């Protein structure tokens, strides 16, 4: 989101035909351009049609299934895994518009020599880009070749050519698809690194206890990390991905705990006494902010310590509860948090030393702030029209911090909570009970491309890795 420093209010939503490579990061800015130009409409109704369809054409990308190169019996299953994973990665990326497979020519290429640009760059596919390749298993080794062609440029069509090799396995096929998808997204999405290899940490009760779990960003490879048999909540992965801080119920208290991804076990973090909740990493990975009622404090307050628990100091003194801090990960100089100091919980920001506390939300019930990677936006959960006679759905909102302009991201009823940004700033993972039980979902930061990731047990408090 490097370009987002420009004031979005100066942008027009009908500016069009941006060059290839700059569409993706415009999504969120565009969203806000709409709200700035139409503030009355925005505040008058919840359902505002916003998003990429209003002004920007995304790159039309055709992705025919990769072709088998060997007759190995493993081929069919790995080919399906690879093709499904690649398609999904590109589909949810928000960067491209995938051309429906029903428009594809009968002959699809598996090699550069088989590409007939004319068959792709004209209707019906009318594709600007073509991703294709082949996959084969030989002697237990999986090899994938993939290319990205600019089929409108018949002179020099190749944008990208990649080859991957590894021991043949479903996981390897998945990783190769993620890597190739990220290469395409990097080139078509304005040079922003894709997220296909990122992780989501979350809480699941599928063992009968709430434990910390992890999964790939697309919901595959779900696995349990903690085995405390108690209640573990609020996982937050460190910026370098080596540790997960969380809060767990011990025999006497809620304490901040630390899990090492490298060691696959819980490592030491001092027990502070009282109720200790909602840890949050600073963007440079050197500090933790969290909520604590240590020392017999009747209210929970925001504290900051270094990552070993030392240099503990308190930032808030107002009436509580004060909870759910999150750092501005771009500057490491501000913290957003939730406070009930005036009654119903509201979102506040402050400097990282506790000064300059500012209330961001003006009404309702607002919780679970999460700071966008570009430092400009907060995502949070809000019952905006809280009060007697109101249905009181908890929906996700996005707020521009400088102007306090906001836009509603979810509209589908149910309780939506715990938003967490993807590292590329294009996606949000969250929890919702819209399917009838609490599950984890993802969407683009404009509210589109909603996908359910979990289906077993109750799954909550997702936290997206930093890279």
């Amino acid at each position: 989101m490097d370009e987002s420093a420009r004031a979005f209010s100066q942008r027009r939503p009908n500016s069009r035909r941006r060059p290839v490579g700059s569409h993706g990061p415009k999504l969120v800015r565009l969203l806000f351009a709409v709200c700035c130009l139409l503030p009355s409409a925005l505040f008058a109704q919840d359902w505002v049609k916003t998003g990429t369809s209003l002004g920007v054409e995304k790159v039309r990308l055709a992705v025919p299934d990769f072709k088998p190169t060997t007759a190995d019996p493993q081929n069919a299953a790995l080919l399906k895994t690879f093709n499904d994973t690649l398609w999904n990665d590109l589909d949810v990326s928000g960067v491209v518009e995938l051309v429906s497979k029903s428009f594809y020519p009968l002959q699809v290429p598996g090699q550069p020599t088989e590409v007939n640009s004319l068959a792709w760059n004209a209707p019906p596919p009318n594709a600007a880009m073509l991703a294709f390749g082949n996959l084969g298993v030989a002697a237990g080794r999986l090899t994938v070749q993939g290319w990205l062609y600019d089929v409108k440029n018949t002179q020099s069509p190749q944008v990208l050519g990649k080859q991957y090799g590894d021991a043949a396995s479903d996981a390897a096929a998945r990783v190769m698809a993620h890597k190739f998808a990220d290469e395409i997204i990097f080139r078509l999405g304005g040079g922003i690194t894709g997220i296909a290899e990122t992780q989501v940490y979350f809480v699941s009760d599928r063992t009968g206890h709430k434990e910390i779990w992890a999964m790939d960003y697309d919901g595959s490879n779900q696995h349990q990390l903690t085995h405390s048999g108690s209640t573990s909540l609020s996982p937050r992965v460190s910026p370098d991905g080596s540790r997960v801080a969380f809060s767990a119920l011990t025999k006497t208290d809620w304490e901040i705990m630390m899990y090492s991804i490298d060691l696959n076990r819980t490592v030491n973090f001092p027990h502070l006494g009282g109720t200790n909740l909602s840890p949050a990493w600073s963007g440079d990975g050197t500090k933790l902010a969290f909520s604590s009622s240590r020392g017999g404090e009747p209210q929970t307050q925001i504290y900051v310590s270094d990552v070993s628990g030392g240099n503990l100091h308190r930032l808030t003194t107002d009436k509580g509860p004060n909870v759910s801090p999150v750092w501005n990960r771009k500057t490491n100089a501000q913290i957003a948090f939730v406070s009930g100091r005036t009654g119903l919980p509201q979102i506040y920001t402050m400097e990282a030393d506790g000064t300059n506390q500012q209330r961001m939300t003006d009404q309702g019930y607002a919780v679970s702030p999460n700071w966008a990677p570009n430092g400009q936006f907060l995502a949070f959960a809000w019952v905006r029209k809280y009060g007697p006679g109101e249905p009181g759905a908890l929906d996700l909102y996005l707020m521009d911090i400088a102007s306090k302009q906001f836009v509603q991201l979810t509209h589908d009823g149910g309780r939506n909570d715990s938003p967490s940004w993807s590292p590329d700033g294009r996606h949000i993972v969250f929890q919702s009970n819209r399917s009838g039980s609490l599950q984890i979902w993802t969407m683009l930061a404009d509210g589109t491309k909603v996908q359910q990731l979990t289906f077993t047990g109750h799954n909550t408090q997702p936290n997206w890795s930093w890279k």
Partner: protein
Amino acid sequence: MKWFLLIIALSALLTLGACGKKATPPPPPPPPAPPAPTASLAVSPNSIQAGQSASLTWQTTNATDVSIDGIGAVQPNGSQSVSPTDSTTYHLVAKGTGGSQEATARLTVTQPPPPPPAPAPTVADQDLFSQNIKDVYFDYDKSDVRADQQSSVQADVAFLNQHANINLTVEGHCDERGSTEYNLALGDQRASAVKNALTAGGISAGRIKTISYGKEKPFCTESNEACWQQNRRGHLVYQK
């Protein structure tokens, strides 16, 4: 005459030699036989309830070495208090130069009739606690003890003042609305508010622990106000 005497003597010798046994001298009188030891062992009473004791009494005479199985060497005469848990046969052996003598006495131990005398006192405390202690209920998103809950607090204070040996934990609970983290913080404040109300009534803070369960352990799982009110509470729990 000499020869005559010699013959007499020889014949006499022969005669005497033939009847030598009749001629042995009388044996010395035997020493007086040592008196055999005597022993008696008695237990009084001979039937007790487990936990009670009985008196074991013994007398011996002419014994140098007296022991009772399970007790060991004892004085020749004595008594001792015993309180076995099961019926026991005491076996005394008295040994002396005149022999040994044994004596036995049996003590029957009956098990006490079960509860009536003494049920464990903590159980009674716990029952009293649950019969008398009242939970404190809260308004939505609030952690101050509301006016209609003061009578519950006063009842709790009165009970805890009368039972100074009882400690407790106050659990803070919340309804299902709102975020997990905010509700845990709110539950913490509710538990603290109840603790503060109790200490204001004179209960020592050292007797009261607090813990928040937020919305993690609801009493009631329906999504309506009646159920939510059940879950917005400070729940007082007996601590051993």
